[in-house]
C-alpha cells in the first residue's frame, strides 16, 4: 500500500501554513490598553523581552492541520495497492453453484463470470459480453497478487476466436455442466430497395440483384422513396440523391444496414473506410458505423463504365456478402480455451483519496468554527 500524489505541485499550497502562524503571532491581546500611572517604574526594563509566543494552541494546531489537508487535497493523493488478496473464484454460467463451491478455497470470493460479476448468491443473466472479454476484464481489475480460479462447464458459449492471454496464472477448472446457448437472433438477410424513379442510374442492376437474392415465388420489395420500410427489413438499398429521412436514420441506428447511392450525402461526419476495392484498385464501396448499424455508400455512379463489377455475374453475391451479417462461431470446448499467461500485467487503478479528504476537511472546518466562536474565549485572532 503506498500513497502517491498525482499533482505534487499542489503541495506548494503548504506555504499557506504561514497564514495562521502569522495570525496567531500578531496577538491582538498585546494591544489591550491599560491606563497605568506608575509607568516609570514599569518602563525601566533593560529591554522588552521579545519572544515568539503563540496564542490558543489548539485553535492554531487545528488551523494548521486544516490548511495542510487542503494542500494535500490539492495535490490529489491516491492510494495504490492495499486491495485484499483473497482468492477469487469466477464461475461461468451453467455450472451448478454447489459444484463451484467445492472447488473454492476457504475465504475465497465467488462470483459469476458474467457482466458486472455478480456474487454467486445472485441469479445471473445470460448473454452480453463474451467469455474471453470477461476474463480479460477480470484479469485487469484484480490486483496482481490475487489468485484466480475459473470454474467452467465442459462447453463454453460466447468465446471469441483467440485463446485469451492473461497476466496471471489461472486455475482453470472444468466441471460437468453446459453453458446455456446465447439466443442471439440469427442475422437475417431481408433487403429492401428504395429509389427515386425508374430512370435512376443503376436501378436495373440493383433490381436484378434483388431478384437474384429473392427466393423463387416471392416478390422483391422494390418501391419509391415514400414507401415506408417494412418491419422485417434488415438491409436497405437507397438509390436517391436526397439525404436519408430522419426515421430511416433512426432505423439504421437501431441496427439496420443501408447502402447509399454515390450522390447521397453522408448523414454524419465520420471517417469512412473502403470495404470493396474494384479490379483496378480504387475503392468501390465505403462503410462507416452509424449507431448500432452500418452505412455503406458507392463511391462512383452506378454505371458499368464506372463500376465494371455491375456487369459481372457475381455482382449480387459479392454485394450480398457486403450487406449480410454473419454469425461467428462462439462455441468451444472448455479444455481448449484455457487462457495463456504472459500478457503484460495491468497497473491497478489507484484509489482516489480526494472525496475522503474533502469530508475530513469539512469536519475540520466545522470544528475550527466551533473553537473560534465558542463563548469562553478571550480577545484573540
Amino acid at each position, binding site marked *: 500500500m503506498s500513497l502517491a500524489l498525482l499533482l505534487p505541485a499542489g503541495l506548494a499550497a503548504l506555504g499557506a501554513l504561514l497564514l495562521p502562524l502569522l495570525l496567531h503571532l500578531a496577538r491582538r491581546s498585546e494591544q489591550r490598553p491599560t491606563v497605568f*500611572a506608575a509607568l516609570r517604574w514599569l518602563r525601566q526594563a533593560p529591554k522588552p523581552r521579545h519572544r515568539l509566543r503563540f496564542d490558543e494552541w489548539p485553535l492554531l494546531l487545528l488551523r494548521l492541520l486544516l490548511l495542510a489537508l487542503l494542500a494535500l487535497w490539492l495535490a490529489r493523493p491516491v492510494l495504490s495497492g492495499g486491495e485484499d488478496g483473497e482468492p477469487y473464484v469466477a464461475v461461468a454460467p451453467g455450472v451448478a453453484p454447489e459444484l463451484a463451491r467445492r472447488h473454492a478455497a476457504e475465504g475465497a470470493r465467488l462470483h459469476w463470470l458474467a457482466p458486472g460479476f455478480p456474487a454467486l448468491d445472485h441469479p445471473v443473466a445470460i448473454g452480453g459480453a463474451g467469455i474471453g472479454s470477461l476474463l480479460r476484464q477480470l484479469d485487469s481489475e484484480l490486483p496482481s497478487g490475487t489468485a484466480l480460479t475459473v470454474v467452467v462447464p465442459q462447453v463454453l458459449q460466447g468465446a471469441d476466436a483467440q485463446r485469451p492471454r492473461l497476466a496471471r496464472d489461472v486455475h482453470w477448472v472444468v466441471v460437468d455442466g453446459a453453458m446455456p446457448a446465447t439466443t442471439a437472433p440469427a442475422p437475417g438477410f431481408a433487403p429492401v430497395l428504395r429509389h427515386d424513379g425508374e430512370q435512376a442510374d443503376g436501378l436495373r442492376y440493383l433490381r436484378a440483384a434483388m431478384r437474384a437474392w429473392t427466393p423463387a415465388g416471392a416478390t422483391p420489395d422494390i418501391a419509391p422513396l415514400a414507401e415506408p420500410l417494412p418491419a422485417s427489413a434488415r438491409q436497405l438499398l437507397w438509390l436517391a440523391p436526397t439525404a436519408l429521412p430522419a426515421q430511416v436514420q433512426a432505423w439504421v441506428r437501431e441496427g439496420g444496414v443501408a447502402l447509399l447511392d454515390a450522390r447521397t450525402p453522408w448523414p454524419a461526419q465520420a471517417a469512412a473506410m473502403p470495404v470493396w476495392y474494384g479490379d483496378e484498385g480504387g475503392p468501390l464501396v465505403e462503410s462507416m458505423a452509424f449507431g448500432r448499424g452500418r452505412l455503406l455508400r458507392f463511391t462512383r455512379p452506378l454505371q458499368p463504365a464506372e463500376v465494371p463489377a455491375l456487369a459481372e455475374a457475381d455482382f449480387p453475391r459479392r454485394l450480398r456478402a457486403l450487406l449480410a451479417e454473419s454469425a461467428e462461431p462462439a462455441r468451444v470446448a472448455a479444455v481448449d480455451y484455457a487462457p495463456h499467461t504472459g500478457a503484460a500485467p495491468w497497473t491497478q487503478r489507484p484509489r482516489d483519496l480526494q472525496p475522503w479528504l474533502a469530508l475530513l476537511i469539512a469536519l475540520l472546518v466545522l470544528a475550527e468554527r466551533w473553537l473560534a466562536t465558542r463563548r469562553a474565549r478571550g480577545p484573540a485572532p
Partner: protein
Amino acid sequence: MAHALIPADVRSRLKDLRLTARRAIGAQGIGLHHSRSRGAGLEFAQYRAYEPGDELRQIDWKLYARSDRFFVREAERESPLTVWTVLDATASMDQADGAHGSRFDAARGLAACIAELALRQGDRFGLLALHGDGVRLVPPGHGARQCDRMLLALHGLRAHGGFPAPDKLAPVWERIGAGDLAIALSDWFDEAMPALAERLASARREVLAIQLLTTGERDFPFAGGHRFRDPETGEELLGDGAALRNDYLRRFAEAHRALDARLDACGIRHARHYLDQPLDLPLRRLFGARDAAEYA
C-alpha cells in the same frame, strides 16, 4: 452632598479623630487650639446668663430690653489653626481601580473627611487643587458654609492634565501661611509633588503626606500582553504582565522607600493608602489616638 463623598461607616468612625498640628500648639499663646472654646470673637456662639465678673460690654442690651434679664453674648473664639488640603488633580489621579473607584474619588473622599473634621473642630480650612490648568483655590474659612463651599468645589473638580508649572503655583506660597497645616493628597509619582512638599516644609509649614495607590499598582495582577499608557505623558509601553511583574514590584518598593526617606528627612509625616482600605485609615495613622489624647 457630603454623603456622596464620605461613606457612612467612615463618617461614624471620624468621631474619635482630631486634626492636630504640632507647631500650632501654643503658637499664639492661648494654649491648645480648642476650637470649641468660647470667648471673644466674631462668630456668634450662644447666649448665657450674666454672671458677676462678666464685662459689661458683653451684655446684649437689646435682649435686655426685650426680656428684662441680662444675657451675655458669647462668640466662638477663632481657631489659631488653618487646615489646607492640597489636592493633586492631575490626570494620573484619575486612574480607576476596578470596583474601588478611581484614585481621585478616594482623594476627594479624604478631602471631605478633612473638611468634616476641621468643621467639627472649628478650624479654618481651605482647598488647593493642582491640575493641568493651574490651581483651583477655595479660600480658607470656617463654619458650615465653608464646608459646603468646599464640597461644591470638590464635586466640580475633574482630574486632568499634568502638574502645574511653577509660575502657576503662586497661590500655594501666598495662601498657606506659616504654621498652617497642609495635608497633601497625591500619588506622589510626579517629581514636582515631593519637591513642593519639601519647600513647604522647609518654610515652616506643617505638611502631611498621604499617598494614594491603587491595588493594581500594589499587586500588579496583569497577565498576558498589555499596552500600558501613562495618562499624563501619553507614553505607551507594550509588555507582558507576568514578565514585568517582579522587576516592577521591586522598583516600586524601592521608589516607596526613597520617597519615605525623603519625606522623613524634612519632617513630613506620611501615610500610604490603598484604595481597597477604609478611607479613614490614613487619617487615623496620621492623627492617631496617641496624638488625639494630647488634645483632649
